């Protein structure tokens, strides 16, 4: 399968859809929404807002009480539910893999259901195993032999196996630990970049929603759609008090995720290799043999000339990789004991460090204008200002040292 731009199929339209459960609960109330094709739309909201119900109505796991749902203009009730479902990828929390089948057997489920030959289905399954970043030898294992993160990758592969234009994901990453969750989110972004599916993703985590969504549908308790828009729109201009409260007091900080940090100046940073004797003073950045950052060491507290050991390190925090946001840059600066945030290249090697002054400036600009590029283009033009900026940085450096 080659990478292709967009599927250009799978527009999902909710027309005045309501769902009232037999116990009287109104889960979804008059939802009208057009979910665009080839993009990720995140249904996000607190518990009981009807986001999962809305998702499950798309593949008829739940039938609406009122209204109708169309896919590419066709009413979803116009074909039998099992046939509809075979054309829609479905990923759930805890993956729901079939414990009695191997990983490949799980992934081949839908291809076999739609009548593909066993051999072709297995070939397709192997291909997808690789696509979601799993080693081929895992294919012969059973779900119980996989970690939670691996299971969820298999869940995604299984959903994609018949190449459906639509992928429904119901809180798929909420049961794994934060490190694995971040990995899975990055993997989904990569996959989505390659495949361009219509992804409908349900989560209660606004950070996850902002990270993954091209569009957010914020839902309020009682099944009401409170706001529908891009993450930037939602964070910058919440439609009402509910949305403002839901996206939270950190929303200014979150909005920094949309500002690129690529234009931030990276200053050279002297490094010490782990295991080598220490020279210099103040906070020094320690790297390993591949130049990847390992942590910081305070030369003032370390006997001069002694080799740096692992236990001497203050472990560094966030690293800024190419393509990172101002939010990451700010976090890199704030989580570094020296106050200098570490920037790395795509291979994880140290490029240098960010000065707090630059980062704070970028954050300020991002908050007021939404763009940092212009700021730095401008800055680089005037040597005086550059000198001023450097002075400010040094001041900030001193501050961060004194304040430790």
């Amino acid at each position, binding site marked *: 399968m080659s990478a292709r731009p967009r599927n250009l199929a799978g527009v999902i339209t909710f027309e005045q859809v309501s769902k009232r459960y037999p116990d009287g609960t109104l889960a979804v109330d008059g939802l009208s929404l057009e979910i665009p094709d080839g993009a990720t739309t995140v249904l996000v909201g607190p518990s009981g807002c009807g986001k999962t119900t809305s998702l499950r109505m798309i593949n008829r796991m739940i039938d609406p009480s009122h209204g109708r749902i169309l896919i590419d203009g066709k009413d979803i009730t116009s074909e039998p539910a099992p046939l*509809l479902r075979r*054309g829609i990828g479905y990923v759930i929390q805890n993956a729901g893999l079939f414990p009695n089948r191997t990983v490949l057997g799980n992934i081949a489920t839908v291809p076999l259901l739609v009548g593909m030959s066993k051999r072709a289905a297995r070939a397709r399954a192997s291909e997808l195993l690789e696509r979601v970043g799993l080693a081929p030898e895992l294919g012969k294992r059973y779900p119980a*032999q996989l970690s939670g993160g691996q299971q969820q990758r298999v869940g995604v592969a299984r959903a994609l196996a018949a190449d459906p234009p639509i992928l429904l994901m119901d809180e798929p990453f909420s049961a794994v630990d934060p490190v694995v969750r971040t990995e899975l989110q990055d993997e989904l972004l990569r996959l989505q970049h390659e495949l361009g599916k219509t992804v409908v993703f349900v989560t209660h985590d606004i950070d996850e929603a902002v990270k993954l969504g091209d569009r957010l549908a914020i839902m309020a308790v009682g099944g009401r759609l409170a706001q529908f828009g891009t993450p930037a729109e939602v964070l910058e201009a919440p439609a009402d008090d509910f949305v403002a409260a839901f996206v939270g007091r950190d929303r200014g900080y979150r909005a920094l995720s949309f500002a690129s940090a690529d234009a931030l100046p990276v200053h050279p940073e002297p490094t010490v290799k782990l295991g080598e004797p220490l020279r210099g003073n103040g906070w020094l950045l320690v790297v390993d043999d591949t130049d990847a950052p390992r942590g910081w060491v305070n030369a003032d507290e370390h006997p001069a000339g002694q080799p740096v050991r692992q236990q001497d390190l203050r472990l560094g925090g966030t690293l800024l990789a190419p393509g990172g946001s101002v939010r990451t840059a700010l976090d890199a600066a704030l989580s570094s004991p020296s106050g200098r945030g570490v920037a790395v290249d795509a291979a994880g090697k140290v490029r240098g460090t960010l000065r707090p002054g630059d980062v704070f400036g970028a954050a300020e600009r991002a908050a007021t204008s939404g763009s940092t590029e212009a700021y730095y283009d401008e800055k680089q033009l005037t040597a005086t200002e550059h000198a001023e900026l450097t002075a400010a940085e040094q001041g900030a450096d001193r501050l961060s040292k004194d304040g430790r």
Partner: protein
Amino acid sequence: MNVFSGVWDWLTDGAHWTGESGIPTRVLEHLEYTALTLLAAIIIAVPLGAWIGHIGRGAGIVGMLANSLRALPSFGVLILLTVWALDRAWGTGGLLAATVVTLLILAIPPILTNTYAGVRAVDPAVRDAARGMGMSPMTQLLRVELPNALPLIMAGIRSAYLQVVATAVIAPYISLGGLGTYVYYGLSQQDYPQMTAGAVLIALLAIAGDLLLAGIARLIVSPGLQIPRRRAWYRRRPNVSPAAATTAAVEPASTDLDSEPNDPDTAGDDRRAAAR
């Protein structure tokens, strides 16, 4: 001591191992009743239990009915059915049917309740995924629910086998054969070595059959469902020895005997344990 040596003498007497009332013939007869009963019980109880488990309703009524059947005295049922069969003049076939039906009453409840429980015990997420992938209800039942319920179903069949093989001893009361004949005639002739030998043979048959069924279960249950016990054993290791876990995290191919060196899964567990 006397009884034991008497039983031993009886069992080792070559005359008891040949002919129409010899041990091999009786064992085969006993197995015939047991196998017929188990087969009929599986044919009745597995689909019924699977269906109830799949739709998730009716379990209360069926469970209650099955369990109250269990309370019927087998001997009484056997006599009742025999009288009825004789009345209809069905001959030996009728007697066999009476025996099998009597034993069925014991065999159905464990298989039925275990099948139901096994199907119900399938993880709701797995069930949800099966439906969401576009499986028809029948495919869900045959491809997902039953295979995953198989360990419990097999346990039910083993339990039913033990009950049936022990209770088939009643067959000679209506002039059928089986190992019960030794018990029956031993008792009436006060030949206690013969009676005890019959009981011992039944016990041996019970154990042998149970082992055989356990072996069959190992073969037909998906390996994916036979893993958890092994994993539980592995999982405890990193907690027992955190140092070993750290070593494994740095070097998955460690020679640490507690973890399988080439098992990335175990290494992954260790890594996760170490990360915690």
